[in-house]
C-alpha cells in the first residue's frame, strides 16, 4: 500500500520515504491535531503535550525511510506518539512506582454496584455545557493510566480494536477488557455527576 487516504487527501508514502518535504508538511498538518490532542489527554499539560508533539514528528521524520508499512501509517504514528507520552509519564512518576496498575482495583471493582440513573434525558446543551465538558476531562484524568490509553485511542481517536492493540502492543483481548472497564468507570462517574444535575433542576 503506497497511498493512504485520510480526509480524502492522499499521502504518498514513496514521496515521504524519499524525503519530500512538502509531502511531510502535509502529513504534519493532517496528524498534528490528533497527536497534540492525544498527548494533551494523556499528560494533561500543554507544555508537555507540545514537547511530545515535536518529539513525535522528529522521530517520524527520522524513521520514515525504514517504515515498512506492516501497520497503517496512522497506527504507526499513534504508536510513536503514545510511546513518547508514556516515556514522559514514567519519567514523571519515577520514584513513585510505575504507571497506575490496572490490577489494583480489580477485586474491589467486581463488587461495586452499578449506578442506575437514567440521565440520557438531559438535553445536550446541558450534558455538554462548559462545566459538563470540564467534568468529562476530569473524569478521564481520574482513569488509571493503562485504561486511559485504551479509551483515548479507541473512543476519542476512533481507532479500531485491532489498531489500538497494534499501537499499544497489546493483544486484542486485553484491549477489549480494558476498554470495557474504562467505559464502565466513566459511565459511573458521569452518572454520579449528571444525577446531581437532574436533582437540581
Amino acid at each position: 500500500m503506497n497511498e493512504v487516504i485520510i480526509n480524502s487527501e492522499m499521502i504518498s508514502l514513496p514521496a515521504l520515504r524519499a524525503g519530500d518535504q512538502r509531502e511531510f508538511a502535509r502529513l504534519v498538518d493532517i496528524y498534528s491535531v490528533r497527536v497534540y490532542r492525544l498527548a494533551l489527554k494523556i499528560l494533561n499539560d500543554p507544555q508537555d503535550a507540545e514537547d511530545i508533539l515535536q518529539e513525535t514528528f522528529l522521530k517520524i521524520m527520522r524513521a520514515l525511510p525504514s517504515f515498512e508499512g506492516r501497520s497503517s501509517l496512522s497506527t504507526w504514528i499513534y504508536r510513536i506518539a503514545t510511546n513518547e507520552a508514556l516515556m514522559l509519564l514514567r519519567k514523571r512518576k519515577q520514584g513513585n512506582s510505575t504507571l497506575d496498575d490496572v490490577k489494583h482495583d480489580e477485586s474491589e471493582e467486581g463488587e461495586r454496584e452499578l449506578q442506575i440513573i437514567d440521565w440520557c434525558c438531559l438535553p445536550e446543551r446541558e450534558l455538554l455545557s462548559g462545566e459538563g465538558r470540564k467534568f468529562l476531562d476530569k473524569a478521564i484524568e481520574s482513569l488509571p493510566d493503562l485504561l486511559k490509553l485504551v479509551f483515548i485511542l479507541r473512543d476519542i481517536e476512533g481507532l479500531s480494536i485491532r489498531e489500538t492493540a497494534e499501537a499499544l502492543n497489546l493483544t486484542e483481548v486485553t484491549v477489549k477488557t480494558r476498554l470495557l472497564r474504562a467505559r464502565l468507570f466513566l459511565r459511573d462517574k458521569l452518572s454520579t455527576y449528571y444525577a446531581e444535575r437532574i436533582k437540581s433542576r
Partner: protein
Amino acid sequence: MVDKGHCKSLLQNLSDYVDGELSPELCVELERHLDGCENCQIVVNTLKKTIELYRLSNEKDYIPDDVRQRLFARLDLTEYIQK
C-alpha cells in the same frame, strides 16, 4: 438489580454490543434480557451516551496556532506552512 447473575454476564458483552460487534446469537440473547430488565437498559443507554459525549466533546479540538508555528519551525518546514 433484579437478576444479578444474568446482569453480570451481560456486562461482559456490553462493549461489543454498543460497538455493534456482538455475534448475532449473543445479540439476540442480550436483547431478550434487555427487554425485561429496565436497569440493564439504563446501563446500556448511559454507556452509549457516555461514549457519544466523549466523541462529541473532542470533535472540534484544534492545535493552537503558536504551537503549530513552533512545530513547523522545529521541523525546518516553515516554508511549507499553509495558512
